[in-house]
Each structure stands twice: as C-alpha cells, then as structure tokens.
C-alpha cells in the first residue's frame, strides 16, 4: 500500500501486542450505525497513472505563457528568479509545522523575523505579523482590528477597493454589529472626497482605502489620512506591495494599518492561490494584531535566538477572547517573499516596479495615439489602468483569437463601467509585446 511502511508481518505483530486479530477490531467500540465507510470512489492508481491523469487535466488549461497577457487586478505575472524556488522547495521549509518548538525550528523562525523586517521597512510601520491567508482576508482582519481599537461600529470603504476584497470584508463582518458604508469615486477614478467628508463622523471606526486603487490609480493618502485623524478613525490601507517599493511609505501618510496580498513578491499566479496576506501597523496596536508573530530573544547561553511570541493574543491561549481565530497562515509563501526580496534587493525591486510602471504608461500612450479608445481616468497610475472601447466583449474575443489577453472587463464588478477594461503590465512586458497588442487592436 502506498505511503504505509509497516509490512503485513509488522501489522500482525502490533495487533498481537494489542490482543487483536484484525485491523477492523480497532474500531470495535464504535456504534455499528456510524460504520458506514466504504465510499464509492475508484481503486488506487499507480504513481505513473496518477501522473499521467493529472497531466492530462493540466493540458486542458492554457498557461498564460501561451498569451500576450495584460491581466492584473490583484494577481501579477512578475518574473520569479530561479533561485527562489530552489530554496523554498527545501523540505526543511516545506514539511514542518508552525514552529512551536523554537530549538528545532530556528531556520524558519529567523526567516519569518526577516520577512517581518522586510514588511516593516517597506511600509514604514513598526510591526508586522508572520502572514495571513491573502489580501482579502488580511483586509478583513485589519477592519476587525480597527473595530477593537476604536470600539466604534461604522466602517467606510472606498468603492475602488478590489470588489472581491470588499465582498470578503462584508462576509467577515456579517456576525459583527457594525455598518459598512461605501464611498464612491469621482469621474477621474479617485476617491470622492466630498462623499467621504459627508460619511465620516465620530462613529467611524475606520476608513478603508486601496491605493493604487482597483483602477491602478494612486490616491492622495495624505489627504485621506488627515480626514481620518480629525475624526479619530483608524486609517486602513490595502496596497500592492510592489508599488510601495517606489511610493512613499504608508506610515508617513497617516496610515495606521497597511495590508495587502504578497503575491507580487515572488509568488506564482497559481489560479489565485496560494498567495499570502501581509499586515503591518504601529507599535501601539501590537497587541491587537491577528496571527503569528516571531520575535528575537536569547537562548540559555545568551546567544540570539527566535521564537513565536505575544501568543496570548492567539486562539490557542485566549480562545473566545483571541484577536482572531487564525492558526495556520501562509507561512511558506511569506518565507518565499523574504527570499524574493533578499534576491532582488532595493535596486532590483525598484527596477521591477519602475519598469512595470513605465510599460503600463507606454501602453497607455500607445492606446491614446490610436484615437480609438477612451481613457476615462487620470494618468497618476502605477502598473495598471482602465480604458474603454466599444463593443469590448467582441474586441476582447477577437484579440484572444490572436493570443492576446487584453485585460479584465469591468462590467461584472462595476455595472456602470460598461466596455471598460483594466490592463496591467509587469517588467516581463516588452515594447514589442505592447506594440503587437495595439497593432492588433487597430487592425483586427
């Protein structure tokens, strides 16, 4: 039998020790009514058969590499250095559990501590946790933190926050006594300040903003931060972490909690998962942070050592009074990000961000030159932007036939934005890729 080492002789010997004569007798004390096993599933296959079958399923997918793709919207096709997965696939990182026993887990604990440092340096915040599930759930946890911090019950969310994140926040908060109000956007795609001013009041627990927003535009966070501060609300930012390598750090803009999805840091697209969520905040909110945190301390000989710490926040200690129910997070993906950031360094990372931005703006200018498309929003965007063409469905389909995925149609998420398309670039895009796309658009 695959994956079971004990031979029939050993099994028999062990059963003898227990005074039993068959494996079935191990379940002898269970009520007969529940022993309904024997599920209707196929018999086991050989390793070669499993491999060949799963490979046949894989062949029914088409890898994004077969296309000239401009999809983004939360998952980005950045280059992953070969060294990254060679390190991460070490089974010493891959197969342990959460590092509860620090003496035999120093490697992963130090890697998590380094990860936390990278996130703090990137965001300007004082403290980061060891990761959460993804961007959407990290945003939800950030909002729950804000409710605990302020003991208020009104949540304001910008409508230009990723629609799936907003939906996740609503689900996470559905058992909590609070209201969620969404603030719309101006014709230029940025948050509507007048709307925001009207909404925010002394009951507001937090303002949630995504920047670069879902349309790729960079919000004026400093201004929003002033509103939040004036009303004593917590300012929660969700951000593409790649953008933070070139944008002003959130801590300097009045942001209290910054979170987001770490996929751009060396993560594959993976059909959307696994990725990981990051969350960082100011020191004064440390005890409200959800999830694992690694800390540096000393061992009995006085040498530096690491362990999980501040665990009295967590479910296994605090139970119903914990800051969150999270146990397993996305540790391996976070360690992957630490490795990615170490490999890239400051210049490498900023080059990725700058090149992605420049390519997106090159595409923008090429589209503008066609005079065939509308560019409804402003130019202050990072690596993606919205454009408009009619009829978008037909045009997207035509491009797809030519192996071009132009982007994401927005009407599913924003019914008012018919024929609007969100397109992203990463550093993997060349001018040639972009020229071909635009050429195909003009001469289908």
């Amino acid at each position, binding site marked *: 039998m695959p994956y079971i080492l004990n031979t029939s002789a050993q099994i028999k010997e062990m059963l003898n020790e227990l005074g039993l004569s068959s494996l079935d007798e191990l379940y002898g004390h269970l009520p007969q009514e529940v022993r309904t*096993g024997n599920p209707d599933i196929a018999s086991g296959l050989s390793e070669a058969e499993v491999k060949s079958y799963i490979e046949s399923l894989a062949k029914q997918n088409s890898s994004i590499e077969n296309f000239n793709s401009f999809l983004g919207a939360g998952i980005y096709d950045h280059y992953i250095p070969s060294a990254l997965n060679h390190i991460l696939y070490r089974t010493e990182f891959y197969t342990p559990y959460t590092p509860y026993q620090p003496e035999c887990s120093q490697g992963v604990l130090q890697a998590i501590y380094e990860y936390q440092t990278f996130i703090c340096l990137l965001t300007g915040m004082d403290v980061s946790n060891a990761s959460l599930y993804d961007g959407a759930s990290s945003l939800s946890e950030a909002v729950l933190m804000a409710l605990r911090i302020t003991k208020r019950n009104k949540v304001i969310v910008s409508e230009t926050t990723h629609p799936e994140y907003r939906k996740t926040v609503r689900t996470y908060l559905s058992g909590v006594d609070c209201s969620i109000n969404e603030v719309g956007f101006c014709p230029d795609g940025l948050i509507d300040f007048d709307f925001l001013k009207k909404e925010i009041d002394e009951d507001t627990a937090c303002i949630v903003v995504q920047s670069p927003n879902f349309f790729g535009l960079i919000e004026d966070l400093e201004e929003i931060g002033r509103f939040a501060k004036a009303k004593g609300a917590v300012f929660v930012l969700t951000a593409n972490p790649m953008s933070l390598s070139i944008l002003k750090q959130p801590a300097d803009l009045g942001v209290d909690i910054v979170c987001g999805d770490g996929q751009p840091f060396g993560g594959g697209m993976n059909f959307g998962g*696994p990725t990981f969520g990051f969350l960082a905040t100011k020191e004064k909110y440390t005890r409200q942070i959800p999830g694992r945190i690694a800390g540096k301390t000393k061992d009995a000989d006085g040498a530096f050592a690491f362990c999980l710490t501040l665990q009295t926040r967590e479910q296994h200690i605090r139970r119903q009074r914990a800051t969150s129910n999270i146990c397993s997070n996305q540790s391996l993906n976070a360690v992957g990000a630490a490795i990615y950031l170490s490999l890239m360094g400051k210049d490498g990372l900023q080059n990725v961000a700058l090149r992605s931005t420049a390519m997106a703006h090159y595409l923008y200018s090429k589209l503008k030159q066609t005079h065939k498309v509308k560019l409804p929003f402003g130019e202050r965007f990072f690596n993606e932007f919205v454009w408009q063409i009619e009829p978008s469905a037909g045009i997207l389909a035509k491009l797809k036939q030519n192996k071009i995925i132009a982007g994401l149609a927005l009407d599913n998420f924003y019914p008012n934005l018919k024929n609007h398309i969100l397109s992203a670039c990463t550093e993997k895009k060349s001018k040639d890729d972009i020229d071909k796309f635009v050429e195909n658009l003009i001469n289908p």
Partner: protein
Amino acid sequence: MNREIIFNKSVPGRKSSFLNECGVSFEDIKQFIPARFLRERLEFPSLGELDVVRHYINLSKLNFSVDANFYPLGSCTMKYNPKLNEDLAGIKEFGSIHPYQDQDLVQGALKLVYDLGKVLCAVTGMSRFSFQAAAGAQAELAGLLIIRAYHNLNKNSRSKVIIPDSAHGTNPATASMCGYDVVVVKSTPEGLVDVDELSKVVDDDTAAIMLTNPNTLGLFEERILDISDILHKKKAFLYYDGANFNPLMGVVDPFSMGFDVIHLNLHKTFSTPHGSGGPGVGALGVIDKLKEFLPVPVVDKKNDVYFFNYELRNTIGRVKAFYGNFLVLVKAYAYILRLGRQGLKRVAENSVLNARYIKEKLKNHYKAVSLKACMHEVVFSCEHQRDNGVSVLEIAKRLIDFGIHPPTIYFPLIVKEALMVEPTETESKETLDHFISAMKEINSEIQFSPQKFKYAPFTTPVRRVDETAAARSPDLRWKKTGG
C-alpha cells in the same frame, strides 16, 4: 555557520541584477507620478544570488521536518507528504494560470476542483464542498456563518454555540468572531462529552455545537448519535471540526454521525505539506439543505463544460479573493487518486494502529489520560514526572536530542501536563519503537538525573530559548542600529 540576520550581511553595491537593463529611472516616472508620491529611501540589503542561497539553505538546516524527523505533533497529522504531489502541483498549466483567465482556458483546473468535491462528498456523506477557505479556522468561520445565515433566514436567530472544554482553540475563537456566545460543556472523567450536561444546555437559543471526533483526547465520541439527536431536536446544527478525520476516512463518514457542516484540513488528512505553517486548505462540506449558503463561486458543470457558479441563492459571500489555495487541491486530489477507496481505509486503520501501539507500550511509564481505546492519537499526562521535578515542557525539549520533534504539549487544556502523540500511519514500527525507547529512557533520566532537564536540549543549534523574555520585551524586527 554564520547565522547573522540577512540585513547584516548586506554589502553596499552588490546586487543580483535579474533585470540587466531596467532603462527606467525615477526621473522618468515623475512625469506621471508627482515627486511628492514617491519614496526616497528603502533600506533593503544588497546581496548577490549566492549570498541569498547560502543564507537560506543554511537556515533551512536548522529546522526539524517531516522528511528528516519523526514529527508526532498531536492534532496536526504530520504524515509524509508524497513527492509525486509536488511534481504535479508544479506543472506550468496549474501554476501559470491567472484567476481571471476566461473559463474555457482553465477547464482542466475546474474539472479537478469539481471532481475533488465529488470524491470528498463520497468520503464524508456531505452534499457539496467549497474550497475557498485557506485553512481549518477559515472554514470554521465560513461554516458558522452559514449556520447563522440559515437561522436568520428562518427568522430564528440564535445566540449560543456549544463547545466542549477539550476543543481546539480555533472553535471558540471562531464562534466569537461570528458574534456567538460560547457555552462550554465539560468532559466526563473518561474524556468524552458529558451528554447529560449537554442536554441541559442545549435549548432553542442554541445555534450549533462544534465538535471534533475523535476528540482531542484521541477518543471516539461513542454517544455521537445521542449528541446529534439532542441538537437536531432543537433545530440546532452539528459542526464537524475535521482536524481529526484521518482515523475515520473510509470507515466512518461524518454525515452518518449526524454532522451538518464539516471541514477537512487537506494539509492534515490529505497529505499536503504544512509549509512551516501554511498554506493549507479548509475544505468546507455541507448537507443538502445548506448547499445554497456556501461561499461563491463554486464549480458547476453544464453539458460537460465546467464553470464558476456565483448564483447561490443564500450565499454568505466570500472569505477570500479568487478561489482558494488551488495548488494545494492538486496535491490532495493526486493523493486520493493514488490511494483509492482501499488505500484511504488503510490509512485510517494504520493511523489508529500506530497510536494504539504507542499507548500500549508506554502506558506503564506515562499515565494514559483515558482507559478507553484511543484512535489516531494518544494523550498522556506527565503528572507523575512533574511530581518528580520534570515538566512536560522539559520532557519535550529532551526528546529533541533523540532527533524527534516533540508531541503537542499542554493541550488539551483539561489535561494536566498533557503530552499528545499522533504518530500517523506513514511511520514504521521501527520509528515507533525508537520513540518508545526514547520516552522510556527519558523516564529513567527523570529518576536518576532530573537536573539535566533544566538544560535540554543539548544538540540543537541554539540552547533553550527564552520565550518569556521574548514576550516581555518584544523585538519583532531587525533595526539598523544594534541589529
């Protein structure tokens, strides 16, 4: 080796240069993004590729892992992670697909998710699965919100969730996140749910009970059908925390035990690696009348075409962006295909056999918490050892010197000096015997040299780590000064 923090290994000017020519400067970008939005400093280390490789490879060598060590961490099901699964999850057509690609380009992925759901329905008796949740705790959140939504829809909202005192910490934490009051029900001296006590606390205001079976003492809740009756008579639901499903797979299905909503940790029972704390998957299954409440989307099939169905009438919404930890599903599905019906059952049986063998061999040396037959894990109380001056923590630390990752300790909370051992089915009798002899040797060390335990472990890269100091003066990140 040089364990120095990576930030202290930085050499100004050194780099890996993955992009040979970036060709873009900050000055170029300022025409689109005004300078006041751009950052000035970023204190990341400057390192070459080999610097980074060597640093992290050396760090990896400081970890115990399932591939190198026996890892009997109770409630965590640290079974062997078959290598085949990793190869399959690494296929480009799984890893390099974008969640917003048109559905005709991802039919293989959708079929895999759909078929995995069907197989798990067959194994558990549930009617439908969602794979959105990234871990057990997140599935618990979605599951309880489903229960909440169902009661609310029937204009019958309720305020209490019942949780045994032996439950995993995630259960009460989840109930609380969902706005429920937690009512704790005690265990009997034997370690089972006190059914009489339970029948007193279940009332019309009870939304659900959250139950693990076998429970965290490794015991099968023999009166599960009585428990189910008590709850169902009050129109309350049974939530199954499937963290301990491994010994029941193919033998007992949760539906026949009366469960209405369940989660399975694919990173436990279905062999996907734990990754030092994730990614996992909390596969969430429900009975027929709760199908329309699942998170969206779910994968459906029409005329042999698979598609994402967002149209569930009473959906609770979402707990995560996109569709869950898809690559983990590939691994779990490969595992099930490889083992098949008989294989899954053998897994369950051997997980019980291995635990019971350990209990039999150690019960005269360490106090077994229950006289009842255990399932896949056995809990000892090291009270006697404590009386002789050695705590279970110190026993755990000493075990590391034998090359064994310590079992779970101080859990379940209702057991003094608890030591919770889950060997899993993938370990051989030789490994179990090594563990047994190590535990016996430790016992005699406690008799003859108890002072030794204050300093264990002796063979690890660092000595006993001061966790109290870590919490008292938190150092949660490297800083340039003082490093």
